[in-house]
């Protein structure tokens, strides 16, 4: 069992992994309040750990429910009505959780909003928050006190009844508010997705779609008795909010949290928590695994004292899965009992609440090596894995969750494709969103007759789904389909380049001629160096991908990223076209 953390006064103990008397139900509830009402009958709950990995706060589901109900009355008494939106800065704190669920009990629609994460990003962050506030039109915004000046600046000019801290609500004494019992098809929350090409797009998530997705995911990862989750994922991202807040709560699963910024500073704390609390489930994009593996390279083997042998769902999602990164992680942590069979490739998107497909537990990754030029012909032709540059390795994203259907359709004529044929991925089922909030145009682009166009490209291998890239960014050069990822991969593997340093786009010139163009982030240098870099990139791309591109050098960090850290390619193109990203003199 998990150990209690040392403390000066009464020792804190994390919530137990299993309830002794309450049977586990995997999200088979009508509404989110009904799910929390049930979870509150047991002893499991959420545990918050400090940057150093010490237990700081314990929030059993029982206490979360009690506090959420009290705060629901306060929010209602403050004049918020069912259907009103409230923006919540999604910090990894009890304040965020209590108010997210307070909204559920009052029929108010919470809108989780991101936190800033980097040096000197003030303008970009403020613009992002302002866009989301203008789209969601919340009546109030709450957050941790430290961020209020930024939020006030972002919301300047917007009509809001209140901007304040989570503690403000605790001090409100009006008690004439009312609880509101939602119906299954009512909105539960709005999630701003990391969609690259449509901004800002708030996914409308109903109680029914949420619970159907949570249930299907819990069955897919076999979240039965004995499972314990550990997470550092931010609550403003679907994988953190749904996967490690809502899916775990609706299945009464105890979960241990490390704040995202604390993970980023000391990533090994994540693994220490897995070890000490005997965690069995945790998810991360590839980069989280990479960060840990890199940090350990300089340490003597076996010196960490970790036991990762109970980890059975090491989920990978949120970006293209990088097989070489996972291999490095497996090798690095094998001495600590880490099994590569725990790696679980998955696929999902906020427009379908979160999950679409998962690998079977304890089977490990399925790798498929296909011909790179095959991508252009829509065929995933298998080739030997001999490391040759004409092949590319993809990781399987598992099988479609129960109650849902996936079709892969031809990019040009829309016919349904079969094995190893590459096309657009469509999803249907109860978790597909009803639409983007107040955005009928974007909704019509994305959902048609119950089928969601994910904008991703994939193929089938048996019952397993493989994702190869984004259809919406596909470039057609002289009648040939070219994947921008391939061009970017080429550029980013040149000396001095890094992942995210380039964006391959198609620009249309005044004569209507399409010109494939690569925006390349480059550090300041003299004109001669820049000229050489342009020539080198051009030559390398021509050699590797076979097309002639224009190369435009742009300032470091000027290419936009999505909230999940992927290149926002469509946005980069728009920003360049309207002059928000400008070429460096070269």
């Amino acid at each position, binding site marked *: 069992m998990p150990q209690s953390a040392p403390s000066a006064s009464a020792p804190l103990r994390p919530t137990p992994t299993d309830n002794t008397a309450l049977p586990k139900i995997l999200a088979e509830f009508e509404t989110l309040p009904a799910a929390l009402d049930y979870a509150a009958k047991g002893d499991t709950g959420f545990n918050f750990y400090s940057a150093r990995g010490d237990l700081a706060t314990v929030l059993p589901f029982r206490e979360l429910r009690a506090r959420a109900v009290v705060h629901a009355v306060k929010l209602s008494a403050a004049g918020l009505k069912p259907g009103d939106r409230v923006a919540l800065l999604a910090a990894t704190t009890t304040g965020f959780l209590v108010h997210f669920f307070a909204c559920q009990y009052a029929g108010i629609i919470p809108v989780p909003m991101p*936190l800033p994460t980097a*040096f*000197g990003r003030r303008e970009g962050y403020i613009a992002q928050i302002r866009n989301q506030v203008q789209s969601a039109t919340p009546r109030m915004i709450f957050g941790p006190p430290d961020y209020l000046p930024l939020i006030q600046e972002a919301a300047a000019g917007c009509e809001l009844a209140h901007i304040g801290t989570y503690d403000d609500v605790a001090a409100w004494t009006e008690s004439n508010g009312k609880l509101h019992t939602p119906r299954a098809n009512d909105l539960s929350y709005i999630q701003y997705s990391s969609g690259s090409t449509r901004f800002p797009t708030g996914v409308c998530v109903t109680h029914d779609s949420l619970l159907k997705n949570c249930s299907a995911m819990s069955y897919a990862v076999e979240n039965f008795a004995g499972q314990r989750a550990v997470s550092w994922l931010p609550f403003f991202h679907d994988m953190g909010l749904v996967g490690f807040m809502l899916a775990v709560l609706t299945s009464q699963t105890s979960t241990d949290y490390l704040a995202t910024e604390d993970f980023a500073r*000391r990533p090994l704390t994540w693994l220490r928590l897995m070890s000490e609390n005997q965690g069995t489930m945790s998810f991360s994009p590839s980069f989280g695994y990479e*960060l840990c593996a890199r940090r350990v390279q300089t340490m003597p083997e076996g010196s960490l004292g970790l036991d990762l042998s109970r980890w059975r769902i090491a989920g990978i999602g949120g970006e293209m899965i990088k097989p070489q990164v996972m291999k490095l992680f497996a090798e690095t942590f094998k001495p600590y009992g880490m099994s590569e069979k725990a790696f679980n490739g998955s696929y999902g998107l906020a427009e379908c609440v979160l999950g679409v497909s998962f690998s079977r537990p304890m089977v490990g990754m399925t790798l498929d090596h296909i011909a790179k030029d095959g991508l252009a012909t829509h065929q995933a032709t298998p080739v030997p894995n001999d490391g040759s540059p004409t092949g590319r390795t993809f990781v399987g994203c598992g099988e479609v969750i129960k109650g849902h259907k996936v079709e892969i359709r031809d990019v040009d004529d829309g016919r349904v494709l079969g094995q190893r044929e590459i096309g657009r991925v469509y999803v249907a089922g109860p978790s597909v969103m009803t639409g983007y909030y107040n955005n009928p145009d974007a909704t019509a682009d994305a959902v048609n007759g119950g089928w969601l166009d994910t904008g991703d490209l994939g193929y089938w291998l048996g019952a397993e789904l493989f994702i190869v890239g984004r259809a919406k960014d596909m470039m057609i050069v002289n009648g040939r389909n070219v994947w921008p990822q391939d061009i970017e991969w080429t550029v980013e593997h040149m000396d001095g380049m890094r992942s995210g340093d380039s964006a391959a786009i198609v620009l249309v010139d005044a004569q209507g001629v399409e010109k494939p163009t690569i925006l390349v982030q480059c*550090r300041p240098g003299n004109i001669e160096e820049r000229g050489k870099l342009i020539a080198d990139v051009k030559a390398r791309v021509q050699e590797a991908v076979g097309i002639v591109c224009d190369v435009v050098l742009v300032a470091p*960090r000027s290419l936009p990223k999505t909230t999940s850290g992927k290149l926002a390619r469509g946005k980069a193109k728009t920003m360049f076209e309207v002059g928000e990203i400008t070429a460096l003199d070269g």
Partner: protein
Amino acid sequence: MTVNGEPSSETVTALHELLTPFNKTGVDLKPGTRFSEDLNFDSLVVMEFVATVEDRFDISVPMNMLPDITTIHELAVAVEKIVKADRG
């Protein structure tokens, strides 16, 4: 430590030492050197570097300060401000 809002040379020297292994672009470290544009820091490198700063000065850098820190000079000022607040 701080005179007229200027960070002490000890603080600046310590930051330069900590930055050396992160200085992949090989630029000269000056007060006005910018983390993103000149040193090419992405958000993960930022966090790794913040961790080393925290360990060296035995402080905790609040996340909400990061958006306003663009240069080495601004970081030095912020570090001294936190140290001063922590030590009373």
